[in-house]
């Protein structure tokens, strides 16, 4: 009886810990998304150039690779994550200005579409509570194939290949959202800063890929 109570208590503790990680992840994710959006607006209004955008993204990736893993277990990880998301938001500015000049509805549709896909997938993973850890290898190999294709297309400059890459990115990022949410639910990810960073990157990549797809196929131009 006593052992039963102890194991029940441990199970409750585990559920509470998971819920806390989930709550903190979504809170941090929403704050970083707002901050990133504000930084993108700043970049758009100041007419940030492509060179500055690339430098901003490179600095953000550098922080993501070398600083965030070292600070994610302390409170210092939060300002680092805000710096990363802010710089990535700033880096989006030239692309957003480009699409706003062509067709502003592309940007709002891509933004809304990304939001709907994220909410739908998160809701699906949270309600079914399925374990998507089996997709890890598949998603990583898919990501590597997409990177190889993107690298090749820098030199080949094929518009059709760019669209195929964008389509594949939307699919892989959808899989990653399921995988990451499932990892939080099942205790595979216990650090809310790292969880928020990976979900933010999935959302950002999905938004950019949707922009490409809607910009290419959408509209009458």
């Amino acid at each position: 009886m006593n052992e039963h109570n102890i194991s029940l208590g441990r199970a409750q503790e585990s559920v509470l810990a998971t819920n806390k990680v989930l709550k903190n992840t979504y809170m941090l994710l929403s704050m970083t998304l707002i901050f990133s959006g504000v930084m993108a607006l700043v970049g758009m209004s100041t007419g940030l150039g492509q060179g500055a955008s690339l430098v901003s993204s490179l600095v953000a990736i550098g922080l993501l690779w070398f600083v965030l893993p070292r600070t994610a277990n302390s409170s210092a990880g939060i300002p680092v994550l805000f710096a990363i998301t802010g710089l990535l938001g700033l880096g989006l500015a030239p692309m957003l200005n480009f699409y706003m000049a062509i067709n502003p509805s592309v940007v709002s549709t891509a933004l809304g579409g990304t939001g709907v896909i994220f909410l739908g997938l998160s809701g699906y993973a949270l309600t079914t509570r399925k374990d998507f850890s089996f997709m890890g290898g598949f998603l990583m190999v898919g990501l590597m194939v997409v990177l190889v294709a993107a690298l090749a297309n820098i030199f080949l400059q094929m518009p059709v290949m760019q669209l195929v890459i964008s389509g594949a990115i939307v699919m892989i990022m959808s899989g990653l959202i399921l995988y990451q949410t499932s990892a939080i639910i099942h205790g595979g990810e216990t650090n809310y800063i790292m969880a928020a960073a990976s979900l933010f990157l999935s959302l950002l990549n999905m938004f950019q890929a949707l922009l490409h797809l809607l910009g290419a196929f959408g509209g009458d131009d």
Partner: protein
Amino acid sequence: MNWMAIGSAVLIIGMMVFIFPSMRHAVKNAPKGSMDDWMGFIIPLAVIVGFIILLINMV
């Protein structure tokens, strides 16, 4: 080849180098999914494809 293309290529190569160990680890250690597990992934993905087609028609 302009410097923007070179910068993008460097960024992508960096990502590949960074992702490679995680990929190797995931391929070796990820549990195998059953047919049912994969269907639980493929069905929402098909819904997303339909949703994107809808978005393209809306723009």
